[in-house]
């Protein structure tokens, strides 16, 4: 407690001695940042549904990660579960639990190429722009649901020191510090760092310890230089997280009881990321040429008690090391008043992923999943005899090397004719991927009727796969302006997007498990009539999945309806082909995989309204989605006509805030705000038998600005609503993850 009193005292003392320039910080100064708007369309005027969250809104609402933007943008939902590796994003009904995301995340013009790095600490973010609907023409792969453009604070825009400290009732604290300087008129540099401790909120009843606590730290150095027509922008950032997680509650479908989290083997996630992004730009009176080069490094380890139960069944450790290089060149006309606006670009990337995913089968897993399966059949002939495995535990090693290369060319032109604006674009995307795999395991087994000693069995599944993908991504848009361009417009668009194809590495332990059983049978010279030793997928080529493509038809409007009232509204219809759905193999299997098994459609509407009058601000975001399978039969049932699981049908967020400004030397501003966030219903399974009903989360903020010190008291989920954020099956058992409980905190921001 003394530590916090000291920190508060230092902040207050610093504040009173400082010059006030917080207002400058929060002023939206679009255009000053010389490397902004690489591809240019301003989201709130372009023919696209967009949510813009400037720095002030992000900080007022306490947004500390991408997940917390859920429902702040209509039909955008990223549930919080698992750990930081879990970045399941749903937009307009579509999303994915694993592998390729539907949303592209771009930080300071650099696309984040691995979704494992999507969940990072938000600090000193100047602007978030979320474009919904396929953005394939300009942004390419994995943007079929949209793009989130994140811009960090620039030292050319603001100079000074920013510090923040926050503490909340779940024993969590966050702190950050940053220095923004302009040593020369044309050179700016910033250094920023942040640390977060999440105390966690879920008790593991087996260990009697909180299982979802964690620490993360990150740092960012940004340098910007400009001279004449040239400008350079370099950002080097690094982040590290070490956390628990996987707070999955066992669900009993007969009693509908959600039990305590209770697993016996350690589960954790550790991740190191290093990102280097360099943007060079040349502008003259005709063209603007930009080049963005990036290097991205990701090194993470996920350790899981994969049965999430007190039994010693099996654990997994997934270690990934990935190097990625990207290069993008964009050429466009520089005069925004030209009737013909054009933009051409080329993008290439190369990723080298080195992954190791050893699965350790422990005593209960060996008995239940392997020996049990075999003995069940053997007992039909030899009721008193058994197959046994000598090892108490054994490891199925799975090593992968997955290089992926891609190249794209694109062009987009817009032509303005009186009140009309016509846009057409086309992108050609090519991608080549390879997977070299080696899964192996060794056990000693014995059939006690015929064998007097154990016999060694070695099973190996190794080889390589190569695939290429080619996509054409067109876009057509028409806009009609109501009058002056400031009044707004109505638009109609047709766009195509896609999620990349890839390989299901998570099914390999299943494949090898089946192969071990088959090898054992072959070694014994027997062949079972029933399906022991089979899995849904038994070859590496079967683990490949193709790209998923979507066509998006949309009409909408951006309207400045009255003084202080801005409205964005849209209606969409999306057809999805070769939909990538997560499939759990039949029976008591351990893996999961992506399969192009479905064809679906989504229709819906979105409404955003922002009204300001004097100190009052009311902000509404509502999204409705009706997303259903047109075709999907997983071999067990036909799900045509059923709602797509995991995506909410409604998202709503209402914020009512009032700000009082004071002509006072010590207190400048007081803001009271209340926000209501509603999400649901969410179906958890393809048969639509389980669902999370619509739920509400109530929050409130009191913010007091005293010169450059801002003190905020905040509360989230004030009604302590219990809700589920995730559901899944593993080894035939069912599990839920639950949302965060009531949380109240205090935050101090200092800008000097």
């Amino acid at each position, binding site marked *: 407690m003394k530590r916090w009193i000291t920190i508060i005292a230092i902040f207050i003392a610093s504040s009173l001695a400082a010059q006030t320039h917080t207002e400058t910080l929060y002023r939206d100064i679009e255009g000053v940042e010389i490397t902004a708007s690489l591809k240019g369309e301003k989201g709130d005027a372009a023919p696209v549904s967009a949510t813009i969250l400037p720095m002030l809104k992000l900080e007022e609402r306490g947004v500390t990660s991408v997940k917390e933007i859920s429902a702040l943008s209509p039909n955008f939902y990223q549930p919080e579960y698992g750990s930081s590796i879990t970045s399941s994003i749903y937009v307009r009904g579509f999303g994915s639990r694993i592998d390729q995301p539907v949303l592209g995340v771009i930080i300071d013009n650099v696309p984040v190429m691995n979704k494992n790095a999507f969940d990072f600490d938000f600090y000193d973010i100047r602007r978030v722009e979320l474009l919904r609907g396929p953005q394939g023409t300009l942004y390419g792969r994995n943007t079929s649901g949209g793009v989130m453009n994140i811009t960090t604070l620039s030292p050319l825009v603001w100079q000074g020191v920013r510090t923040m400290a926050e503490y909340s009732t779940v024993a969590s604290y966050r702190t950050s510090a940053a220095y923004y300087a302009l040593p020369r008129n044309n050179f700016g540099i910033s250094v920023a760092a942040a640390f977060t401790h999440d105390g966690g909120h879920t008790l593991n009843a087996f260990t009697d310890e909180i299982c979802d606590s964690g620490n993360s730290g990150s740092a960012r150095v940004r340098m910007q230089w400009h001279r004449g027509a040239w400008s350079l922008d370099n950002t080097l950032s690094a982040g590290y997280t070490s956390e628990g997680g996987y707070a999955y509650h066992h669900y009993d479908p007969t009693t509908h009881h959600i039990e305590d989290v209770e697993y016996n083997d350690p589960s954790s996630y550790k991740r190191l990321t290093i990102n280097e992004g360099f943007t060079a730009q040349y502008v003259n009176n005709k063209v603007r040429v930009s080049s963005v080069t990036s290097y991205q490094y990701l090194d993470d380890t996920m350790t899981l008690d994969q049965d999430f139960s007190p039994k010693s069944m099996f654990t997994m450790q997934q270690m990934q090391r990935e190097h990625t290089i990207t290069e993008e060149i964009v050429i466009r006309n520089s005069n925004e008043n030209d009737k013909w606006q054009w933009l051409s670009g080329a993008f290439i990337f190369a990723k080298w992923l080195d992954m190791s995913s050893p699965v350790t089968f422990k005593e209960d897993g060996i008995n239940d999943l392997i020996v049990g399966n075999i003995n069940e059949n053997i007992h039909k002939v030899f009721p008193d005899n058994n197959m046994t495995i000598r090892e108490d535990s054994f490891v199925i090693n799975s090593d992968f090397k997955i290089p992926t290369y891609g190249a794209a060319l694109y062009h987009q032109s817009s032509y303005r004719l009186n009140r009309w604006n016509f846009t057409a674009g086309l992108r050609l995307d090519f991608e080549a991927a390879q997977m070299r795999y080696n899964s192996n395991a060794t056990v000693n087994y014995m059939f006690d009727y015929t064998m007097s000693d154990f016999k060694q069995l070695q099973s190996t599944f190794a080889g390589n796969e190569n695939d290429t993908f080619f996509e054409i991504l067109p876009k057509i848009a028409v806009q009609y302006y109501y009058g002056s361009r400031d009044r707004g417009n109505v638009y109609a668009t047709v766009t195509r997007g896609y999620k990349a194809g890839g390989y299901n590495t998570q099914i390999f332990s299943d494949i090898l498990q089946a192969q071990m059983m088959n090898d054992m049978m072959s070694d014994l*010279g027997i062949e079972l009539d029933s399906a022991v030793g089979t899995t849904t997928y038994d070859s590496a080529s079967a683990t490949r999945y193709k790209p998923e493509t979507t066509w998006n038809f949309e009409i909408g409007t951006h309207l400045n309806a009255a003084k202080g009232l801005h409205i964005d509204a849209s209606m969409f219809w999306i057809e999805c082909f070769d939909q990538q759905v997560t499939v759990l193999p039949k029976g008591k299997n351990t893996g999961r995989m992506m399969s192009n098994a479905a064809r679906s459609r989504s229709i819906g509407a979105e409404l955003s309204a922002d009204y300001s009058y004097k100190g009052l601000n009311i902000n509404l975001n509502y999204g409705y989605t009706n997303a259903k399978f047109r075709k999907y039969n997983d071999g067990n049932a036909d799900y045509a006509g059923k709602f797509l699981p995991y995506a909410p049908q409604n998202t709503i967020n209402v914020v009512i805030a009032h700000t009082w400004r004071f002509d006072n030397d010590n207190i400048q501003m007081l803001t009271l705000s209340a926000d209501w966030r509603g999400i649901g219903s969410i179906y958890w399974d393809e048969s639509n038998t389980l669902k999370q009903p619509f739920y509400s989360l109530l929050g409130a903020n009191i913010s007091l600005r005293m010169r450059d010190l801002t003190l905020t008291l905040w509360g989230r989920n004030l009604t302590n609503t219990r809700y589920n954020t995730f559901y899944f099956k593993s080894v035939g058992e069912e599990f839920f993850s639950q949302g965060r409980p009531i949380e109240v905190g205090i935050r101090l921001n200092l800008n000097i």
Partner: protein
Amino acid sequence: MNKIKNLFLLVAAALTFAACENGHENNLPNNPNHKECYEGKMVVDQNDGSFYEQNSVEVDYEIYDGKINFAMYKVKFASGMPLKLDMVVEGVDFEENNGVYTLSADGVVPYAMGGPFEQFTITQLTGEITETTMTLDFLCGEYPVTYSGSK
């Protein structure tokens, strides 16, 4: 009582030793080269007036240390048996006459599922192997079995 127990253990140990020493030393492959196998019908008398028939049964043989070893691949002895197994019969006496092998054996323990399969001890085995045909007639445990195959 202890003497009887010790005697039992001694006999059991001796049997185990014998089984290990004699254990499955043939060169017949687990996964046969189908071109080299005889293929035909196996009929098992169920001793209840019915017969279980299995077609396309592959049988391979070798001559090893003056005896014939043969393997019957993926065979079932009753329709209700939930698995097929490879059965290897070793140490069968034979006589050769103009390329025709005449087989005879009694009390041979076959090998299956990784070891000796005493439950189905082969008795009263007779048979004939030519370059293109193979016939077998034996009791497998208490079940009469006949096989007739060709290449």
